[in-house]
């Protein structure tokens, strides 16, 4: 408990490059794949198991952005439990940009994807003198330990308040 409170209140300066976590898993159901597909990616291989059988995938597969949305869902849950403060609502910042987002293999109903992240860099850039930028590498692996998804994302993290020099005569 103490530990999680400590981590939750981390500032930009406190987040170590190299930190690595396996932060969550999700099993995709046919129902949710179809729901997401109908809203955002209405190709038949995302929306109809029957029609998908005649596609190059030979069956229903999750939309690419569905993987990203599930990554976000698991990341928010993880942050609430362990990381920079979703709960205090201040220090957790917004996503700025994404690089090298790739999908390697289809995700099908019943597949379970496990996500990892590693803090790979803290950028020199500052935003409004209040935020630093944390770059993390994120990957998703299926139940056979095959990589299906990866990307890097830059996220704002609040800078520690500057301590003013105490003695001014």
């Amino acid at each position, binding site marked *: 408990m103490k530990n999680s409170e400590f981590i939750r209140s981390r500032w930009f300066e406190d987040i170590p490059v190299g930190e690595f976590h396996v932060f969550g898993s999700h099993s995709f159901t046919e129902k949710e794949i179809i729901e997401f597909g109908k809203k955002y990616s*209405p*190709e038949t291989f995302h929306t109809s198991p029957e029609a998908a059988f005649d596609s*190059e995938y030979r069956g229903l597969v999750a939309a690419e*952005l569905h993987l990203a*949305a599930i990554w976000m869902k698991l990341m928010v849950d993880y942050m609430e439990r362990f990381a920079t403060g979703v709960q205090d*609502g201040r220090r957790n910042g*917004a996503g700025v940009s*994404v690089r090298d987002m790739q999908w390697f293999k289809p995700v*099908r109903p019943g597949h379970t994807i496990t996500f990892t992240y590693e803090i790979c860099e803290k950028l020199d850039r500052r935003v409004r003198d209040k935020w630093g930028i944390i770059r993390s590498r994120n990957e998703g692996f299926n139940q056979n330990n095959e990589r299906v998804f990866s990307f890097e994302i830059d996220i*704002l993290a609040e800078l520690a308040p500057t301590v003013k020099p105490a003695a001014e005569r």
Partner: protein
Amino acid sequence: MDEWQNLEVGQEFETGTLTLSKRDILEFAAEFDPQPYHLEAEAAEASIFGGLCASGWQVCALMTRLVSDTFKDQGIAIQGIQTIPNMQWKIPVFAEDILCATVAIADCNRDSQLLVCDIRVRNQHQKIALTLSMTLRIAAPQSAPQSAVRSTDL
């Protein structure tokens, strides 16, 4: 569905529009991105965004919908997204914002059936909310199913 063979580098398409309701924002956020600035007006006003706004992933997913519908209208069948080499969220998307996108053809490789697009999503004030580059896989002409991709997959 081999209309994409006629695409030219530099060609641009305007997508249709999508209006994002507050309910859309809250529903997506509750399921995928339950952070205060996507769920509660008060917390959102105090945040860096200055108001209740859509998850960046919802904006991105809506972008894929706009692109998908546009290419479908052109007779081009998308088989999947290969990569998004880079993407930037520029400004927040708020409730009742109207989004549309410009899709510019940056490269068109007929041998590998890959189509690279530069995409700008903007709101009703013509402000750019999202920019990205995206590589799409396109269906082979007619005989598509036989070109067995990833046959080892379950």
